[in-house]
């Protein structure tokens, strides 16, 4: 369902993604492994439609998303993508519930449906008891659960996570892996960019892809 064909991404003279060819099937959990600056995050941003390639094609469900006009790229992200950022990108001064509801605002859903989606997402990621607490008062692990609940509240087909355990200790990282398993059971396509070795030998992970200098290389 996700297909990258001869994709390049250059920032001035820096080649962040160098002729990448990649196929990810529906329901697959893929880990992009590589050092900082290897191009993993750029690949995620391209799949998310957050940036456009310099060359090549990014096909999601049969459509080259890189050629979508801005309005449709926004719709694509809204309907298909849940993104978990390394620093979570939450709004610290508002409540957990309001943070999670944020992707639903442009949809203008009826109040009861909005609340229903919110409750389901909070319950799934075990954060219901903090519903009215401001995000800045949460621990790192709780903040991450809020970020994942927000990414999933729209029920997107694809979940992308950029260094999701970079700010977590070992115990919380294991909790995150449990969350991943929950998402996988829901048949989500998941792509994680990480250099955390914890992910490399997990049963839940279908494939580990190694990225270095913007290229996909065989994992050593």
């Amino acid at each position, binding site marked *: 369902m996700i297909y990258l064909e001869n994709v390049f991404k250059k920032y001035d003279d820096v080649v962040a993604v160098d002729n990448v060819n990649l196929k990810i099937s529906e329901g697959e959990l893929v880990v992009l492994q590589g050092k900082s600056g290897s191009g993993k995050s750029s690949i995620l941003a391209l799949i998310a439609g957050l940036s456009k*390639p*310099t*060359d090549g*094609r990014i096909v999601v469900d049969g459509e*080259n998303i*890189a*050629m979508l*006009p*801005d*309005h449709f790229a926004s719709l694509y992200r809204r309907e298909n993508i849940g993104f978990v950022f390394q620093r979570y990108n939450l709004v610290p001064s508002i409540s957990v519930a309001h943070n999670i509801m944020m992707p639903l605002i442009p949809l203008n859903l009826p109040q009861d449906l909005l609340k229903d989606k919110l409750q389901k997402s909070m319950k799934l990621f075990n954060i219901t008891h903090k519903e009215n607490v401001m995000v800045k008062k949460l621990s790192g692990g709780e903040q991450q659960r809020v970020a994942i609940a927000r990414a999933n509240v729209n029920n997107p087909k694809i979940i992308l996570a950029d260094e999701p355990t970079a700010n977590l200790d070992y115990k919380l990282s294991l909790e995150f892996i449990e969350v991943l398993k929950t998402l996988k059971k829901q048949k989500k396509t998941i792509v994680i960019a990480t250099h955390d070795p914890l992910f490399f030998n997990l049963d839940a992970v279908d494939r580990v892809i190694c990225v270095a200098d913007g290229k996909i290389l065989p994992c050593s």
Partner: protein
Amino acid sequence: MLLTPEIVTIEILDSIFILFATITFFIAIYVVLYWDRNSFTNKQYHLQMQSYLGATIIKFIFYLKIPLFLFFVYTLDSIANLLPGAMCGAGVVNATVYGTPLLFLKILNIYLFGYWIVLHKEDMQTKTQTYIRLKFFVYIVAYFLLLSEIFLEFKMFGGLDVSQVVDCCGAIFSTTDSSYLAEILGMNTTLLLSLFYGTFIAMSIAFFLKKRYLFSLINLFYLIISLIALIAFFGTYIYELPTHHCPFCMLQKDYHYIGYLLYIMLYLGTFYGLLLGFIDFRKEKEELYRKISFTCNTFYLFLVSYFPLSFYIKNGVWLS
């Protein structure tokens, strides 16, 4: 040469427009020649980014040009005091040979710019950007018209001579002349009003029958006949003077700036009406634009009709 703060403002803005419009002109040529949605090369992605830049610049120019047109009309009126013989914008327009073509070009460009903006909006709402080539082609045409407009504007303002006596509306729009304009303005009142109200009735029928192309075509007639009727007949009731035929004086404070409202209504009504003949809109949007057009045109009709009626009620006679 006359240099007032208003003229300097217009000329500075014109110079900025030339710079940005020329940058976009080259982008437009590139898009028209090389756009290929099925390609996924560096060139195509680059072109897509450039098309966004070009569209942003064009929107910037066009959104400024529309209020600037009103400012231009206001400027003509304000500098009329400086030209001997001129009492309103008509005197300034007539002071040089460039004035009249400039005015027509400005009106044409206002319609064209509006068309471009709607076309762009439609284009961005289709996944495949159906209208991208067309909209940049229209821009290339608009660019030359814009340059011509700016050239004429510089020539007109540069040619104004405060020591030269000019004709004003009383002479220009006189019905006793033997010019084409005088013949049009001196048209039989019954015939003129029959054409004006008749065109409106035809437009109403096309509106209720939802005949898109017919509605658009009638809007073109309505625009022309409305302007003639306004200058030749309704204007005389606005001024309460049977010999005063002027499209500009009604923009002055003495007449409560009523001209601005009339022209804006006529522009909006005929613009949205004409649009229906040029772009294939979705059903709901077509319906919306048809309603906006008809509402504005109806408002215009009632507003201009108010003046002779109220004059008759107050005085018991018609102007002749």
